[in-house]
């Protein structure tokens, strides 16, 4: 197991290096540079060239990438924002908490609603109730988060003045963004739960359990859910990872001090260093979360777990024979 985890972690390194290259190239390719916004009509061409040279814009892209990677690898330095002069890593980590807390509150809300609802839908599969739940989840999937946010803002903030319109540090300010972020998420989880349980419900081993005289409740808990939650947690992990970056729109609406809004601002300002660094850091977090999910997945599914354990044993035997 440990070996598997280590291989997976090592494997992340080349992938992330490729990510830095792709992101750097894309950001560099974007029309306009940070300098464009600084140029004033009174500047002489020499001054402009000087400004460009300050950001290495007079050199080829590969030079800038090399320099960037050199700083990243040797000093762990992701550079500083070209606009606010704030170090990128500091900007990211100081705002990460706000994004993570928002995605987690969305996730918790989603899971609390979605999993019981999914189990219920599977239980009443084929009936009108199942259709209603399915329709509800489809609406949840189709509702644009930003639109829902605005509708909720209109009613709960402007009409009845119950909840704040943006981030103010209180728990109330979490309510609307959480609902907006959690709705889509819970719809996805609910659908996955339903289909995972229905898939498991068809398995022969449930019949074996019933023939043993296992009460139906136990059949559901021990036999159905134990098998069904494997695909469910896989999907949940993916959603957590995705929501680390995916709430940019909601953050924008609620002036949330998170990384998503920071990125939107950076892109709009053509702040290459910030954009690049934020994407790289988010991608790293994202990959780490996915990696953890994979490892958990291997731990809860004995079929996968033993596949690794066994291959290790076999290799050991092979080594001993040699």
């Amino acid at each position, binding site marked *: 197991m440990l070996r598997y985890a280590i291989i997976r972690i090592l494997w992340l390194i080349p992938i992330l290096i490729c990510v830095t290259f792709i992101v750097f190239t894309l950001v560099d390719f974007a029309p306009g540079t940070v300098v464009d916004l600084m140029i004033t009509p009174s500047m002489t061409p020499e001054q402009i060239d000087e400004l460009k040279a300050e950001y290495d814009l007079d050199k080829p892209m590969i030079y800038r990438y090399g320099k960037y990677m050199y700083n990243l690898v040797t000093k762990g330095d992701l550079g500083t924002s070209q606009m606010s002069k704030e170090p990128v890593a500091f900007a990211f980590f100081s705002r990460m908490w706000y994004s993570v807390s928002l995605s987690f509150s969305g996730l918790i809300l989603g899971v609390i609603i979605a999993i019981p609802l999914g189990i219920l839908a599977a239980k009443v599969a084929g009936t009108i109730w199942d259709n209603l739940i399915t329709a509800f989840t489809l609406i949840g999937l189709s509702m644009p988060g930003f639109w829902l946010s605005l509708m909720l803002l209109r009613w709960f903030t402007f009409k009845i003045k119950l909840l704040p319109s943006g981030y103010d540090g209180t728990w109330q300010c979490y309510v609307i963004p959480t609902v907006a972020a959690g709705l889509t998420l819970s719809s996805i989880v609910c659908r996955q739960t339903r289909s995972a349980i229905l898939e498991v419900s068809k*398995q*022969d*081993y449930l*019949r*074996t*359990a*019933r*023939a*043993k*005289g*296992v*009460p*139906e409740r136990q059949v559901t808990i*021990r*036999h159905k859910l*134990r*098998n069904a939650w*494997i695909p469910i947690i896989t999907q949940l992990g993916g959603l957590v990872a995705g929501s680390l970056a995916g709430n940019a729109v909601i953050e924008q609406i609620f002036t949330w001090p998170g990384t998503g809004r920071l990125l939107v601002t950076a892109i709009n300002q053509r702040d290459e260093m910030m954009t690049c660094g934020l994407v790289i850091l988010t991608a790293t977090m994202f990959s780490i979360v996915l990696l953890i999910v994979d490892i958990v997945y291997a731990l*809860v*599914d*004995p*079929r996968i777990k*033993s596949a690794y354990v066994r291959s290790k044993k076999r290799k050991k035997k092979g080594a001993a024979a040699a």
Partner: protein
Amino acid sequence: MNETLKNNTAAAEVDTRETVLEVKDLVVQYVLKEATVEAVNDISFSLKEGEAIGLVGETGAGKTTTALAILNLVPDPPGVIQQGSISVCGNDMLNLDVKELQKIRGKDIAMIFQDPMTSLNPVLVVGEQIAESVRLHEDVTASQAFDRAIEMLELVGIPGARAHDYPHQFSGGMKQRVVIAIALACNPKILIADEPTTALDVTIQAQVLSMMNDLKEKFNTALVMITHDLGVVAKMCDKVAVMYAGRIIESGTLEDVYNTTLHPYTEGLFNSLPRINNKGSELKPIPGMMPDPTRLPKGCAFAERCKYATERCFEERPASRYVNETHTVACLRYDEPDFHIEGVED
């Protein structure tokens, strides 16, 4: 085979044994939007303790549905037990509440399922799956139940240490042994084995069968053996019931059915077996296919494939008749006093 036959007849003579299973007039259908599948049509049989009956027939004859009906586990919907009664050790299986049923399943009556690959829960260790049954039906602690599971594994020829392994770590034959261990965990009075060896290699088949035979004798378990393999029946059973399109068309002791075959379908079954002694003889398969169970003919279901069929066979449904005390056959032609089938070739 002769020896088994002798044993059987001997057993039949001194019959003071208790009847443990009685199926009467059972009708099971699958009611779908498009059509109704008539899976089991009015079958009856009974079984005494320690006795073994073979339910023989082609795929789709209604054998598995019968077995599930005995446990009252026919998948519902779409399955409906339309009529009949089933008594397991004196309990009326079709009219008990769920709690009582759960007490009987696994304890008084257990079932070995057809496909060992899919019958075990992949995320529970096998010991746990055996122990679950013990824990449910006996007043034991979890660790006692697990010890019992280890014992059961050893009984079916698997080292006890493997109780902590998951199903995917076992081979097919081993999995089938585990399934058997689960079924036998609480010493059931009746064991239903649904094609327990179909998914296995021939050599493993023989091992599993002889093991089942030993266990059956050891615990004096009554056995319902569902199979399409007439050889397995000869090895394991005292009685045979041949099923066709959801009906028992011939039943009796092994000797009745094997040595004095009466029904044309049973004859066809025997004739379609390859014979090792007479390699020159040709296989004589039964022509045609089983009728569509959603549209059973109004006469004898076998008439269309039967070489003895008369016009009457297509019009009237034959009732079961007793030929002697143990042997029944459902064929209209036996209304004619001098009718006899050509007989099974040797």
